[in-house]
């Protein structure tokens, strides 16, 4: 029997979520705990990679003892908290918030090729059956049609000022190319002196596009393929451009590559890519791309040929070099645009075939 005054063993701290006691670790936010519990608390300004911001207020929950609902994304759990995530009052506030957000935008439907998170607003509006005709009034944001950069569409007519783009640019990319200008309803996402992205510090990494929950920032390269028929399929791959090994999900319709998404669970990149991995996939199906092997004949020009012939010619050339100069004279460079399998085969040939480690890749970064 435990005597009075004797210390009990330290209990694991818990919070009570909708009636169930849930253990948590120091520093966890209510939103993180709710997500673990599959509570499906809605949000538009949250990105798990970024510091909690507390802007959209959709993730508010009732906290016993607090005068007002609290934003679960910015509230750190303390032992004994009692939280209710889905009361009628909370759900009504969420619906009103969504109706307010929708009222400032021209359009809720956007093609999913716009970006990774582009359907978030649409999905929530449908889930809450938010009335799009309510709270009519002036609309916010202004599309930057003048920004003719080839990668990022800046359709601020759809912007809901969640600032995920600004925060991802600062916190993930460390670039600070975009920021917030003005105040209140006149708030705009901007660059230095409200100019074009190409005149700013933007590196066109595309992270702002992929975190945008409305398609206000969108992938121009992918959107070119909106009219390609067929369902979008995702194929997990690794970006070939350099040695970091960013995981990507290749988007295809039928046999056509239509876009690239960074993999949020990619161990090397956690949702980040650079301009090449994100946007430079056009070569795959480019008209100028070689479709057969080519060999240079005695006329000094390249001619299409069969694989057998091409491989024979290559083997011949390699042998000739080794005979004249020794195997140490060989050196092989794989193209960043070659498939991984080709790069692998090349190094295998050099290492296992010639006993050499003279290998490299054109985009060894």
């Amino acid at each position, binding site marked *: 029997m435990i005597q009075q005054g004797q210390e009990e063993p330290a209990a694991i701290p818990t919070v009570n979520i909708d009636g169930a006691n849930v253990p948590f670790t120091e520093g966890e936010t209510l939103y993180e705990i709710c997500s673990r519990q599959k509570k499906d608390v809605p949000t538009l300004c949250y990105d798990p990679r970024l510091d909690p911001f507390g*802007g959209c207020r*959709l993730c*508010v929950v009732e906290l016993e003892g607090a005068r007002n609902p609290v*934003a679960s994304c910015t509230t750190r759990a303390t032992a004994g908290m009692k939280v209710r995530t889905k009361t009628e009052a909370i759900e009504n506030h969420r619906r009103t918030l969504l109706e*307010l957000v929708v009222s400032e935008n021209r359009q809720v439907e956007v093609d999913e090729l716009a970006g990774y998170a582009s359907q978030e607003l649409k999905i929530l509006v449908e889930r809450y059956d938010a009335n799009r005709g309510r709270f009519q*009034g*002036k609309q916010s944001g202004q599309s930057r049609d003048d920004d003719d950069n080839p990668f990022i569409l800046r359709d601020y007519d759809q912007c809901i000022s969640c600032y995920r783009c600004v925060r991802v640019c600062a916190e993930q990319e460390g670039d600070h190319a975009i920021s917030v200008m003005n*105040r209140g*309803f006149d708030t705009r996402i901007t660059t230095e002196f409200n100019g074009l992205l190409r005149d700013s510090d933007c590196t066109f990494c595309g992270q702002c596009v992929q975190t945008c929950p409305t398609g206000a920032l969108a992938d121009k390269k992918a959107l070119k393929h909106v009219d390609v028929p067929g369902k979008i399929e995702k194929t997990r791959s690794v970006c070939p451009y350099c040695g970091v090994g960013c995981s990507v999900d290749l988007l295809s319709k039928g046999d056509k590559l239509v876009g690239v998404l960074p993999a949020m669970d990619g161990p090397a990149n956690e949702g980040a890519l650079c301009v090449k991995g994100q946007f430079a996939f056009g070569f795959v199906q480019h008209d100028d791309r070689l479709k057969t092997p080519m060999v240079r004949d005695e006329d000094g020009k390249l001619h299409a040929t069969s694989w057998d012939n091409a491989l024979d010619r290559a083997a011949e050339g390699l042998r000739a070099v080794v005979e004249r100069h020794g195997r140490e004279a060989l050196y092989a460079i794989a193209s960043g645009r070659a498939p991984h399998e080709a790069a692998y085969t090349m190094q295998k040939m050099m290492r296992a075939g010639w006993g050499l480690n003279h290998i490299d890749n054109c985009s060894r970064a």
Partner: protein
Amino acid sequence: MPSPTDAEIFTRWANTEAPLLPILHAFHDRDGFLGEKAIHAISEALRTPIADLYGTVTFYHHFAQQAPGQSAPRVCTGPICKLKGADALLDAMRGEGATPMACSGRCDDPVPVLKGHQTLVACDGQMTPWYSPIPIPNPGGLEECVFASIREPDRGTHDGYRRTGGYLGLEKALATDPAAVRQTISDSGLAGRGGAGFPTGRKWDAVAEDPRGPKTIVCNADEGEPGCFKDRTLMDLDPHAVIEGMAIAAHATGATRGFIYLRYEYPETAQILERALKEARATGLLGGQTGFDLWVRRGGGAYICGEETSLLNSLEGKHPFPRNRPPFPVTHGYENLPTVVNNVETLASVPPILSNGADWYRQLGTGEHAGTKVISLSGDVLRPGNYEVPLGLPLSKLLHEWAGGVPEGRAIQAVTMAGLSGGFLAREGLDVTLDEPSIRAQGSFLGAGGIMVLDDSRDMVAVAHSAMEFFAHESCGKCFPCRIGTARLTERLGSGGPASFESWREEVDDIGSTMKATSACGLGMAAPLITESLARWFPDQVETHLNSTTS
């Protein structure tokens, strides 16, 4: 004096505490606006990303980005100035490039025009400089705290202040253990006079007990609430009281540095404070051996910077969005270190409390209400101005006996509370006493103590519209309910929104209740009190308005 070069400005400011605001002001003063060249230079000197700096500059409405910029006159079109013909004055001055500005905290004066570093008023067809008037003594001869000596000649100078009992509180405090000083403040019942009403002693305890440092005392002098002009009067007429209060707070909490964050619209006050600070340093009250020094930092024009965490971001040179709380400034304030943020009036109350004792202060209030509160009274009353009232004084007594009531032939229709943030009180709602429990029972709050009086000739929907326009203009844009809600409510008080009263009421109530419940800071929580109280007290005027806009 020749204008300073970029290098001279950076030499002067780059290595001081909280350098961004003074550097922005130095360029703004020199060039008249903050152009691309200036922003490039500042970005480089402070190693701040240029897009962030640009965005932050655009946040402040008084920082111009092109000529004529600072030299163009700004005419106050706040709620009271509107009643006094501000729109006509603005139109008359359009030729000089005049633009409107939100309430600039001079509702007891003629319509003010801000030009460069000067406040001017139209007087017999001439624009003449204007200074804070001395508060009218209360008719009953009731004892005061912060106004007790404010009418003494030369009170604003160090010598005059000393002669009338100034700096005795600091001397007493310095001879006392910091914990005992904090106990005195706790015992006095002094609570935040900026509107939130948090017990001052508890705030100081929290900062004192935090082992981290350096600690900071911030005086919140960003008096942006329309209808509030008490802090300006205190600083203009009694600047040493604020400095003394801060020095006592520093001793009580172990703080080594302080700031007075002053709103842009008070340029004369900045000069008065700088002069007083110079005197205080020269007489050994600040800096050097004292281990505490403080500096004035001027804002750039943004109501939200009166919200303490937004103020701290502004001081630190960050985008002035409010921070998420907790943690609170007492542990994570300026530079994420323990910080006291107190209002001007709160700090000015501290020296007399130290001199006269906690009990003396407590008994200045009525019944169980401790102490006094300065009320800024403006609008349709015979004697507008600042009045220091005992907490618990009946509102009607202030309006009629102290301020002379409404002009002859008129009746009071409504008053605003907490400036604009408390919405309207009318009819039986006017039977309150001036203390939070009484006013909160009517769904409003006393807040910073601005009360605007509206007689029965005023169009309440028009007043509500301009109030909501103000909140929409000042909403920072961080959280959805406030950013969109203030815009939608403004439209619904103007010509937009549903035409029938029932649908109007339903939309406005839904927006309002969500704003109150979910907004990230006080601005979004308070703004809907305007529509809520309008619909409660004046549904007939709303209906008339809806009929007139749809017919």
